[in-house]
């Protein structure tokens, strides 16, 4: 576990409520893989008591910069979103297991901020087709390359859910399927994939985290083998089959 002071290089709103921050840290960027995450300290004092986890959204090895993209939700993200360039934050990472990227042809299915990590993933694999869902066009995270959209209000792409974009797709033509988004969306996507293709599905999970480095046991994800996985060290990316979806509930674990 590496912990370093990283300088905020840029901080701007991607769209209302969604912020993008670029941090400079060549050493971290060097080690990072797609799907891994960082734990960011929001203040230098003891509060808030926990760091906030964010997926690595994109990295530039040449500039030594990595970006996170996040929705402003509570105190932690609002404080981060008001960072001025030059601010220094303690950042631990890269953490966790990212995507297993040996496959060639990828389908990336993201819901809301679940797409935050797709630019890094798309840049790391041979070919990637990207499907994105969100409530409205404002909530769609830009992933850099081309993408097909579904919005609940129809304000961008197709009106409907991201699963609707799966209709008629030949899923077997992809070697790997990456899924990231709210639990109900991930469940729906996993169910839409035929049994024999399930082993190709990698999901990127979220959970409330105490530490991010395996010490506290706070980040439990129900495992299909019984018991729990630790999201922070066994994940956040795991195969869809490793998760016991029936115990996942509808919300955040």
């Amino acid at each position, binding site marked *: 576990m590496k*912990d370093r002071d990283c300088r905020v290089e840029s901080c701007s709103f991607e769209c209302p409520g969604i912020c993008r921050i670029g941090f400079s840290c060549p050493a971290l960027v060097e080690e990072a893989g797609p799907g891994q995450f960082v734990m960011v*300290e929001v203040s230098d004092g003891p509060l808030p008591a926990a760091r906030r986890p964010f997926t690595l959204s994109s990295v530039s090895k040449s500039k030594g910069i990595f970006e996170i993209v996040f929705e402003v939700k509570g105190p932690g993200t609002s404080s981060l979103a008001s960072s001025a360039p030059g601010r220094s934050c303690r950042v631990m990472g890269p953490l966790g297991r990212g995507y297993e990227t040996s496959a060639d042809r990828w389908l990336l299915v993201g819901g809301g901020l679940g797409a935050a990590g797709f630019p890094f993933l798309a840049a790391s694999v041979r070919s990637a087709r990207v499907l994105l869902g969100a409530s409205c066009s404002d909530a769609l995270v830009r992933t850099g390359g081309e993408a097909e959209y579904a919005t609940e209000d129809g304000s961008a792409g197709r009106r409907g859910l991201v699963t609707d974009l799966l209709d008629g797709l030949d899923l077997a033509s992809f070697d790997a399927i990456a899924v990231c988004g709210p639990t109900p969306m991930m469940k729906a996507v996993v169910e839409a994939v035929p049994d024999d293709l399930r082993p190709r599905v990698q999901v990127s999970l979220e959970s409330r985290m*105490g530490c991010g480095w395996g010490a506290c046991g706070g980040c439990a994800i129900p495992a299909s083998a019984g018991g729990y996985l630790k999201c922070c060290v066994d994940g956040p990316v795991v195969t869809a089959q490793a998760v016991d979806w029936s115990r996942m509930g509808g919300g955040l674990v």
Partner: protein
Amino acid sequence: MKPRIEASLWGRDFGNPLMLASGTCGYGTELLEAGLLGDAAALVTKATTARPREGNAPPRIADTRFGLLNSIGLANPGAEQVVESLLPEMAFAPCAVIVNVAGETLEEYRRVVGILERSEVHVGYEINVSCPNVSAGGMAFGTDPACVAEITRLVRSSTGRPFSVKLTPNGGDIVEAAKMAEGEGADAVTVCNTFLGMKLDWRTGRPVLSRGAGGYSSPALLPLVTARVWQVASAVGIPVIASGGVWWGEDVLELRAAGASMVQLGTAVLRRPSRISEILLEMRTLLEGS
């Protein structure tokens, strides 16, 4: 007593009084690998039970404005596994290892210690009679002085190694419990485990943690821990190990002034493992300046 950094416990001298609190450093393997244990005097492992425990259903963590709620539920791989694979990894750790022991029944404490005795790695035990996150055992034992006495007696009869009994602030009389532990042969008491706390979503009326209440830790609890350390240290002759609310080097000095021999860091280490060495530096600076 003049403020100082050196500390000793159970006949061992340490360069400083910092211990890593149970449940916030796993079994130490991650910190060892990261090379972060060099500045700690000792670490206390995650609570260990006789058989593996899955722990509570998620969510297990809730960040409140001023602290952290946890409801891990003693998730651990069980004593056998700890002896076979985790403790051996810590054999050459640069700090002392203490195993935190929990049980659902009085008898389980004896069983756990019995299994753990097979390992030579750990120097002693912390007997957890104060976990707020389980329905059987845990905190319920700690609030009952007779239970504290009985568990201490059972553990005393199972090991020659020194042990501390970790007490609860959530009911009962902590001073009475400490006296019971002393009376039955405990070598220290740890004051104290987390405070029972809860966060609710007022819109839905539902608690955030799956089990409802959890254990609350916060730097704002330091005065509560200081008072309890002071009360207990005035009442017993065995060492008092303080646990709760520490973020700054100053806090460690204050807890020692209240009577603590050693001082644990829990949530601070979860949040920032380098606090171990940062706190030490802060203590040195304060003591040089005083």
